[in-house]
């Protein structure tokens, strides 16, 4: 394990702590669960403007956080493995799946595991296990 690898892992832990802090502060402040598919997906439904405002602000904040990182460091690691039609099929699976299962990595993972919900634990184990099997079949980064 090289120093560069150690820094990547440290950054992972640091980013994770920030994400957890974000979810906790959103809960304490607004009583809401920081599930991105739920928050952003709620914008596609008819809802009162009061319900839309905080959702829109969270999504704008999400973009601003990533943009601030990009502007302050000058680079952003973003390497696609799949492009074109396969990527859009993936997007449809992600969209349909997170709506049907009512949550994604943040809602079921970060928050659901946080509140020790059996439902979220089952969802998280399911999507990680299915994803690992899928990558085993179609290949990893060098597919």
């Amino acid at each position, binding site marked *: 394990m090289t120093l560069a690898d150690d820094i990547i892992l440290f950054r992972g832990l640091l980013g994770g702590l920030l994400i957890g802090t974000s979810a906790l502060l959103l809960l304490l402040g607004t009583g809401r669960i920081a599930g991105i598919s739920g928050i952003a997906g709620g914008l596609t439904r008819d809802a009162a403007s009061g319900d839309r405002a905080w959702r829109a602000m969270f999504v704008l904040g999400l973009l601003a956080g990533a943009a601030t990182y990009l502007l302050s460091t000058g680079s952003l690691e973003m390497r696609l493995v799949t492009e074109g039609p396969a990527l859009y099929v993936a997007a449809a699976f992600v*969209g349909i799946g997170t709506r049907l299962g009512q949550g994604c990595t943040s809602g079921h993972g970060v928050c659901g595991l946080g509140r020790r919900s059996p439902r979220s634990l089952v969802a998280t184990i399911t999507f990680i296990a299915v994803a690992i099997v899928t990558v085993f079949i179609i290949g990893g980064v060098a597919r």
Partner: protein
Amino acid sequence: MNALTAGFTGFLFGLGLAISNMLSPARVIGFLDLFGTWDPTLALVMGGAILVTIPGFAWAKSRKDKPWFAGEFSWPSQSEIDMPLILGAALFGVGWAIGGLCPGPAIAAMTSGSLEVIAFVAVMIASWWATDRVIAART
């Protein structure tokens, strides 16, 4: 204050995703490649996050108090482990494995300017909308 809190926490979330390199599908797929060249980064990200949320959410529940800027906590109401949950999580798992993007990182990664990622988000949002319609029509 609700909207401001949401904006600030969204910012922290996006910053956390960028710092941890989770905006890169290659890292996510590397984590999922358990039987290949495994990349442990995502495990540390998830571990770091629940290191905060497990004690934090338990504390929030034990306070027996309202949220700072809202009348009540919006805890998820469903607790049953049913077919839509399993099927949805499985479909999501397949999509996550193909693209290496889940909703949060996909939205935040649009800042890279990649048209592919922007198209991914557009298809994902359209799929949310369509799935909502189908679910509403069936119930």
